[in-house]
């Protein structure tokens, strides 16, 4: 299986890259883990690839103003193994370790994954639970928007043509925050049939600051606000967790495919929400 031909450029600055991406036939190449297989099957045939790998600064992870700023070209395995991410935002590191396999994690990037917006990608669960923001550069423009505004529909984002994700911003967690990502893997591809990330705190016997992110269930990842509301302020008993998790799929048009029906996905979303909350609770101090 062989891709169609294309022009190639590997600019060394964002400005140059944006200039090249102004061509409507151009497509940005980050890790290529989604794009290259599509090109090999000739389901994608961009006229030009703009390889971002030479752009300095897109590969950095920095801590700044109570947030971690992760360059768009940081790979999943760098996130998985970065001491900074592991200590300051363990949920993201844990989630990264569930993606694909070792080789895919070595090549795939966080920016590429977010821009592709696959409904079964692992990151969205964590990023929604983290209320992540995304920095986007366009020709002469720069904006930072919450992930919720970036994500539009399955495989569709609010990125304008020619725009690039440059940075993903996640909060530095308080040491007392408990987090967990729980997932059922599709056995062939490793994608999430359903994945749920939970993040919470517990003080004086009450749960607070609950955030729950879900992937695989709907057209894109989302924050399960109803679950959060129901759980917030409870003692986190098994019954309370189950009650809250029961609403996770409400109002969501659930995906269906060869590997799981919509009903089953809705059910799994509840199961993995319970598991993620329980695990997060066990880690919260």
């Amino acid at each position, binding site marked *: 299986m062989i891709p169609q031909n294309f022009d190639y450029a590997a600019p060394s600055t964002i400005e140059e890259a944006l200039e090249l991406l102004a061509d409507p036939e151009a497509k940005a190449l980050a890790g290529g883990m989604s*794009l290259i297989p599509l090109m090999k099957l000739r389901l994608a045939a961009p006229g030009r690839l703009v390889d971002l790998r030479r752009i300095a600064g897109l590969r950095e992870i920095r801590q700044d103003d109570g947030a971690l700023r992760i360059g768009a070209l940081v790979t999943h395995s760098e996130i998985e193994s970065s001491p900074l991410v592991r200590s300051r935002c363990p949920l993201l590191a844990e989630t990264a370790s569930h993606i694909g396999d070792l080789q895919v994690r070595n090549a795939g990037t966080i920016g590429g994954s977010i821009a592709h917006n696959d409904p079964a990608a692992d990151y969205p669960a964590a990023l929604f639970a983290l209320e992540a923001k995304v920095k986007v550069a366009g020709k002469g423009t720069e904006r930072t928007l919450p992930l919720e505004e970036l994500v539009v529909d399955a495989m569709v984002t609010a990125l304008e043509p020619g725009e690039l994700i440059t940075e993903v911003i996640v909060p530095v967690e308080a040491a007392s925050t408990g987090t967990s990502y729980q997932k059922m893997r599709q056995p062939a591809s490793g994608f999430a049939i359903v994945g749920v990330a939970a993040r919470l705190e517990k003080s004086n016997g009450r749960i607070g600051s609950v955030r729950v992110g879900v992937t695989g269930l709907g057209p894109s990842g989302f924050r399960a606000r109803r679950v959060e509301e129901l759980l917030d302020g409870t003692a986190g008993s098994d019954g309370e967790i189950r009650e809250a998790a029961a609403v996770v799929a409400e109002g969501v048009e659930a995906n269906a495919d060869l590997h799981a029906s919509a009903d089953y996905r809705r059910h799994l979303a509840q199961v993995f929400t319970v598991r993620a909350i329980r695990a997060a609770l066990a880690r919260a101090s």
Partner: protein
Amino acid sequence: MRITGSARIAAAAPEQIFRLLLDPAVLSKCLPGCEGLERTGEDEYRMRMKAVIGAVSGAFDGTVRLSDQKAPQSFRMAVEGSGRIGFVKGEGLLKLAGQDGGTEIAYDGEVQVGGMIASVGQRLLDATARMIIRRFFTRLSEEAGQ
């Protein structure tokens, strides 16, 4: 693949929506990637489409056929298209009902997908099909509001 669901368009009554849905100019604006509908017969059109779904893109040539028109309640729509990346063939019933000054559109159809997109796209077929339908009705809603 069975595709069923419904969409609500707040701004227009069934009579108007029915008219819009049967207008090739409107249809071609609402179908994502449609590059034009050309009338080839009574309620029959030739369609050219460049579908772009994320990084995936593919050109399709096909036909759209409308039948069993019962204005303003219902009609059937049959779509066929084929291109390098596969083919799609579907037929469904659209039912329109007035609701609070707007229109509730219920659709129920069966879609066959073949070729490359069927053999490698399983994981995303359902999600993308429904995404296309959502975008269709969003645009229809915009048309209706104008």
